[in-house]
């Protein structure tokens, strides 16, 4: 009796403590939290809008996707909160373990029987109960924290990372990247590469490293096309990006439909659940990679620009957290997460609007899909984590 009473009091004490001036809640970046909550809510509505009529017309549960998505949000938010309260400075010690787990996951997907292929990439591990995870999403977190750990280590008198640190950090990034390329998941590889360059840049390493990496990226992409490293479907997607009529029935069709769907939204959209393009399922993968088209058609320019605005707030707060971080590790982690989010958002929305080539990456916070949501909210957890422990 006494025990439970005192525990209750302790919990209550902790909670009220948290709300005090220097309390943990007050320490959090509430603007970031608010933007994330809004985005998650919008995401849930869009997933519902993108699937409800489709499932209803097939005689299935119209809220099938919504329900699963809400469960995913719940899990993701829990993961995020857990990450938030776990001091990131202690996390450094666990980073190698996280990295090894992600690495093993990436190897596992390549083993026939464990990994499964969706949309041309062997990127998924199927679990019982109709669930599947995508280790590539966690690899983003692992690579960013791993690199940050190595680059933040300083010997006496060193101001900026030396060649050895950068080499080690690149190795940490290169191994998972190689495995992602083998899947092949071009989108994740591109986003990861961009994040790696940003992390190295922010670490203060010599500009030669940055220049070298950018050059490597250019040569790599040219080489990939010339040496037929890319699969046929990837080249087709790239071609249809340049000329949407090159392959009208397949990737070109998707891109065309995606643009039509967004463009037909106009200023205020066709109204939620009322988009004829969306309800006719003209855009494939609409609840996942092409979720932005639902917003484009049903919410119009007002709603879609609002979503991009919310993304802008998230990225701005991430940058602010990076700037204010008390140590380089915190800055590199938050800067890396900012870069990851930014490039993934840009790639996804850019693809839907025909600005970027077609690659299968989900839109952070909005797309249906557990693993992506988990990784993204762990990222938010890390940002808050760094923010709460600034000097």
């Amino acid at each position: 009796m006494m025990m439970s009473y005192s525990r209750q009091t302790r919990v209550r004490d902790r909670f009220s403590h948290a709300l005090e001036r220097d309390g943990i809640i007050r320490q959090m970046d509430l603007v970031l939290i608010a933007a994330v909550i809004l985005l998650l809510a919008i995401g849930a509505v869009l997933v519902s809008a993108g699937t409800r009529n489709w499932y209803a017309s097939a005689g299935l549960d119209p809220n099938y996707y919504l329900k699963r998505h809400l469960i995913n949000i719940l899990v993701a938010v829990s993961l995020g909160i857990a990450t938030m309260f776990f001091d990131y400075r202690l996390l450094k010690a666990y980073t190698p373990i996280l990295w090894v787990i992600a690495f093993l996951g990436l190897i596992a997907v390549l083993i026939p029987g464990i990994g499964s292929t969706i949309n041309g990439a062997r990127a998924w591990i199927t679990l019982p109960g109709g669930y599947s995870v995508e280790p590539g999403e966690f690899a983003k977190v692992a690579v960013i924290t791993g690199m940050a750990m190595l680059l933040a280590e300083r010997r006496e008198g060193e101001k900026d990372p030396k060649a050895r640190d950068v080499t080690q950090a690149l190795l940490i990034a290169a191994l998972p990247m190689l495995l992602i390329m083998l899947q092949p998941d071009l989108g994740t590889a591109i986003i990861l590469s961009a994040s790696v360059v940003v992390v190295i840049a922010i670490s203060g390493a010599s500009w030669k490293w940055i220049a070298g990496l950018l050059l490597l990226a250019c040569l790599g992409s040219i080489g990939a096309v010339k040496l037929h490293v890319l699969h046929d479907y990837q080249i087709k997607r790239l071609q249809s990006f340049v000329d949407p009529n090159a392959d009208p029935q397949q990737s070109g069709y998707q891109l065309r439909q995606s643009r039509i769907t967004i463009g037909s939204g106009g200023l205020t959209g066709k109204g939620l659940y009322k988009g004829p393009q969306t309800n006719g399922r003209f855009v494939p993968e609409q609840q996942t990679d092409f979720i932005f088209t639902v917003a484009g058609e049903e919410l119009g320019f007002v709603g879609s620009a609002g979503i991009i605005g919310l993304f802008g707030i998230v990225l701005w707060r991430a940058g602010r957290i990076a700037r204010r971080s008390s140590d380089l590790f915190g800055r590199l982690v938050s800067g890396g997460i900012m870069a990851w989010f930014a490039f993934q958002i840009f790639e996804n929305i850019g693809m839907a609007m025909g600005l970027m080539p077609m690659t299968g990456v989900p839109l952070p916070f909005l797309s249906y899909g557990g693993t992506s949501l988990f990784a993204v909210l762990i990222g938010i957890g890390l940002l808050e984590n760094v923010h709460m422990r600034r000097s």
Partner: protein
Amino acid sequence: MSERSWRRLVVVQVLIASMMLALMGRLYYMQIASGPMYNAAALDNQSRDIITPAARGMILDDKGVPLAMERTGLVVSIDYTTLQKQKDGGKDVLTRLAKVLGTKYATVRARTTLCGAGGTSVTGCWNGSPYQPIPLTQSANPDTALQIIEHSEQFPGVTAEPQGFRYYPEIGGTNAAHILGYIGQVSADELKSPSAQTTGLHQYDIVGKAGLEYQYDPELRGQSGIKQVVVDRTGAITKVVRNTPAVPGDHLVTSIDSRVQKVVEDQLAAAVARARAGAPGDPLGPHQADGGAAIVMDVTNGRIIAMASYPTYDPNIWANGLSVKQAKSLFSETSHVPALNRAIQTALAPASTFKVVSLAAASAAGYNLNANYNCPASLRIGDRTFTNFEGERPGLIPMRTAIALSCDTVWYQIAYDMWVRDGGLTPKAHPADYFFKAAKAYRIGQRTGVDLPSEVAGRLADRQWKIAWYNANKHFFCNYQKEAIPAQRTPMLIAIAKENCVDGMKIRAGDAVNFAIGQGDTTETPIQMAQIYAAVANGGTLWQPTIGRAILKPDGTLVREIKPKKLGRIPMNAKTLAFTQNALRAVVTEGTAHYPFIGFPISVSAKTGTGEVYGTNPDGSAKDTTSWLATYAPTEKPRYVVVMMVSQGGTGSLTGGPSVRKIYEALFGIKGSTVNPADSLLPGGPPTALPSLTSAGRLVPLGGKPK
């Protein structure tokens, strides 16, 4: 943490901010600037039109006998996209299908090939949309249909179901293929035409392609029913936006009498056969006789009662799908192009039938038609000798006799004298040109405007034409040694070319005298011939020939009547006209058309013609003469004009005469030498009342009960 780290972080943030701005900019461009364009694309994407074809109106003869109608048949059609999805491109399915339908694989393959696919056009290819089922036959027998339905797994994409299709019943054996024309899938060009916009033509419509089907297509076609639906990505219908029911087409009543038409078709074929066999008493036969035309027209209003062209074809040839062989044969030279309607699409030298024009010219020039004229066997003009083509009787004869016997030398002299008076090779500034002016007033070289498409105009070879012709050919004649093929570089042809190079733009004496007897470059179509002789018969009025009489709504109520139109008068005063009519009667009583009408109880007026044709046949022989016979009857109170033309058919009288006589026998009810008006196919003349339809759209033939 270094200053450098902070600075770079700011640079990265700026980069990210510009990325977000780029997204915003693109979003603005797509949704606001290009929003309407994308909106239209979305609508196009989502909506589909399902077309219910309208029942096409009937084409009826003067008494209401259907010449063209809708009929329900078992239509076997195949879906193009399903066919394409087959592993072997549909070869297997089509082979099986060809076997069941009793046709060849190549034919079925051709019919299911899209026109213009791969840059080539296969004969008999599918001109319609790949999304519309392609009909292979419209009158499959029930056994065939059952075979297809019961073994549907062997025939993916193939359907067999009852559907309406166009049917030409050929009641009583009437063919009328050239008048009726045919229908077909609307082509891309037709859809683009400005008239397509006003008549609401739809891409899946069936339209008239030739003949009356084409001419009266907007009335006959009706309006296809359009159900506009919203579909999803798989093509499943999610919503019906608009549903306009089909409006059936109107009926066309014509002045064609199907029974007279049948007689005329048979008699034309008989005339061709006669020429090919060698007509009795024809010293020049047998003839090639590669084709012909015959027309019966009401002289009082220009309405056409019958119009035949030889050779003809089965108008239902399209219903069962044109085979490659049939399609080629329709337009092939060796089968004499059966698709050609020779009544309106062949213009040939009118020969002596042209003398009704020449009489007007001579009269205008002041020649006394009641005087006697010299008719020598031949006449030398310049360095050429011109002879009589048909009859000849040397000596001084009255003009009436000259017409009756078709003496040409009389006209050579008259035409030559007029040519000299006009200045000869150095014409006066304002030549009198009596012949050219008369011909122009007779509308030579102008389309009659008959309500059929693709009529040709013929040619009036006057001074302007001669200059235009010279300008077009000057280079060839003046560089003949270089331009002509070696075989044509004979001394005579070189001399002619040289002559043409020097003064080919001028009307020479030879041109002038040839013009007067309807030879040379001037040409007429049989329909023009009928128009002119009807005018001579009716007292001078040139009527625009018409076939359509009225448009009726599907329930039988009148939409509009098609009134006959006067185009002008022939250039003859009453005296000259009376003389001409008199002379044309003399042609039958004592002249070149005497033989076919011996003992005929109704008086017929006529003019024969034997037209020279330049050039050679595919077998190398020189082209034979055109047989013309232009007639009207009864002479006292003319009602009908009958014109018959057989190309390469010899003379008008021997080849066409007996056939024209038979046509008059049918028109007036003549047996031997007695007239029984009750036996006439048109007792009391062509019907004046329109056939009526009951409100249910069923036909009530004139003087009968509903069928």
